[in-house]
């Protein structure tokens, strides 16, 4: 299969060497392989090889009903499962002209933002690991554990939930979430400050990240980059603000933007987003509307003919679902747009010209998940 990738020694100038990373390498965030052509310590060209986690989810969708397909959506980006679910449900709701009641919308926002914090904490840990520090990983996962406990009370699952349904959420939010979150809200900012003292201001960390992998915004538009990668380069773009969904326009939060467009800015943007997400969850829990937690939805989901594209701000960038319906129980065609796919597409452009060690950091700064890249 990879015959094309094999380059005969005679064809190469003698100074170049080929190094294979992965598919099972701790720095590649899952089963991802890339072949780097290097000149000494510098990377000349990267050839990413993906598809190890390809499960044909788009084809499976054509053979399942809308409800049967929903659990698979969790398996795309398994660190931000609720954001994916939210996007899929919004797309089907748009096809069927259903609007979730205000209480369901608030619960969805709580879910999505808590999941964003959990995903960014993994990034925080992985970023430390990439630069040679092991402690942040343990800290990040420890606090993520608290959020997963909240999810366990809410949805019954810890990683894949099947909690958000078409028309609302599966169950009402239990009162215990309030007490758990209050405890988390009291303890977490203190801890986060301590972590930032440990990592963000660390001289070694800054030297590894600053002025590495600088990306200009004009290039990022062209490559289809989104989310924290785009914001790190100074683009004030967040789908929660530009095309508000699920009542995001009601909440008061800020969009952090980087100035330089390097790896350090992408890191700072994500750390700031954690704080903003905490603000949103606190607001949503304070002003939780009363009423139903699900709209009236027909027993058999049969959207009318038409096609929609709905996107939302996932934990890594723009998550989108393009659904073509022919009025059947199954979607006629379902295309999933994932941020990881677009970002790994950009890897050669972003990393070539840098040192090998920096290429790992740049890949880490994209915060990719192979489950969502390969689908």
């Amino acid at each position, binding site marked *: *299969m990879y015959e*094309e990738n094999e380059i005969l020694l005679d064809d190469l100038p003698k100074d170049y060497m080929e190094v294979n990373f992965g598919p099972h390498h701790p720095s590649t965030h899952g089963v991802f392989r890339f072949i780097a052509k290097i000149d000494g310590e510098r990377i000349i060209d990267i050839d990413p090889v*993906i*598809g190890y986690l*390809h499960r*044909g989810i*788009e*084809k499976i969708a054509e*053979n399942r009903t809308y409800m049967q397909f929903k659990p698979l959506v969790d398996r795309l980006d398994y660190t931000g499962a609720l954001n994916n679910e939210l996007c899929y449900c919004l797309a089907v709701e*748009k*096809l069927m002209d259903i609007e979730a009641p205000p209480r369901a919308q608030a619960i969805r926002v709580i879910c999505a933002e808590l999941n964003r914090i959990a995903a960014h904490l993994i990034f925080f840990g992985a970023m430390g690991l990439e630069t040679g520090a092991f402690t942040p990983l343990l800290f990040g996962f420890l606090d993520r554990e608290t959020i997963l406990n909240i999810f366990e009370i809410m949805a019954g699952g810890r990683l894949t939930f099947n909690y958000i349904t078409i028309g609302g959420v599966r169950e009402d939010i239990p009162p215990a979430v309030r007490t758990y979150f209050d405890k988390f809200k009291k303890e977490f900012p203190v801890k986060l400050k301590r972590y930032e003292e440990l990592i963000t201001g660390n001289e070694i960390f800054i030297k590894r990240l600053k002025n590495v992998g600088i990306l200009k915004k*004009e290039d990022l*538009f*062209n*490559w*289809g*980059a989104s989310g924290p990668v785009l914001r790190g380069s*100074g*683009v*004030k*773009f967040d789908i929660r*603000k*530009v095309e*508000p969904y699920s009542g995001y*326009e009601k909440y008061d*939060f*800020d*969009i*952090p*933007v*980087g*100035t330089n467009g390097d790896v350090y*800015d992408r890191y*700072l*943007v994500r750390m*700031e987003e954690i704080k903003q997400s905490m603000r949103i969850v606190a607001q949503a829990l304070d002003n939780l509307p009363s009423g139903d937690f699900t709209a009236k939805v027909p027993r058999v989901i049969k959207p009318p003919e*038409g*096609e*929609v*594209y709905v*996107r939302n701000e996932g934990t890594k960038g*723009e998550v*989108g679902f*393009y659904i*073509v319906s022919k009025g059947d129980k199954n979607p*006629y*065609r379902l*295309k999933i*747009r994932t941020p990881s*796919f*677009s970002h790994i*597409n*950009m890897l050669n*452009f972003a990393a070539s010209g840098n040192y090998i060690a920096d290429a790992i950091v740049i890949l880490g700064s994209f915060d990719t998940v192979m489950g969502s890249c*390969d*689908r």
Partner: protein
Amino acid sequence: MEIINYGYKKINNRDVIETIRPKAEETGVAVKFSEFKDQLFCGIDAADIKKFCSLLNSDPALSFEYIKFLTAVDYVEYIEMVYCLYSFKNNWSIIIKAKLDGQEPVVDSITSIYRGADWHEREMAEMFGIDIKGHPNLKNLLLAGDEDGFPLRKNFEIKWEEREYVPPEKFE
């Protein structure tokens, strides 16, 4: 670090149509506009895709710089290419559609205009058997290359074999 908060502006699709229509007529692209649930669809001829995309990308008043995704839909008689573009400057979204032949689909690559389209086009080539003309590196992306037919076509059969459970042999 700069932190910015900004408001929400409703987009009117009429404005988008009125801006695109005269410019498309100038370049000689016939565009058929349609709307569905606040989304704007532009139906064009498959031969004009490259011309239309470069107009949308390079014109300063339009500046559709960002490609959300591109995909294809198999309607058996024909295959439809779907391009979804976005303009940061105006906060406009459009979906471009073009019909291809169902048997031997051929379309121009837009990788030279939108570099982000690279892998999307490679995926469409292996999943639908679309010949993407002018693509620099059209090899398999996700698939291993040992399947018969194109997986996302409607005539692709999903096969599986049921296997009997064979208990493992006991070690002496």
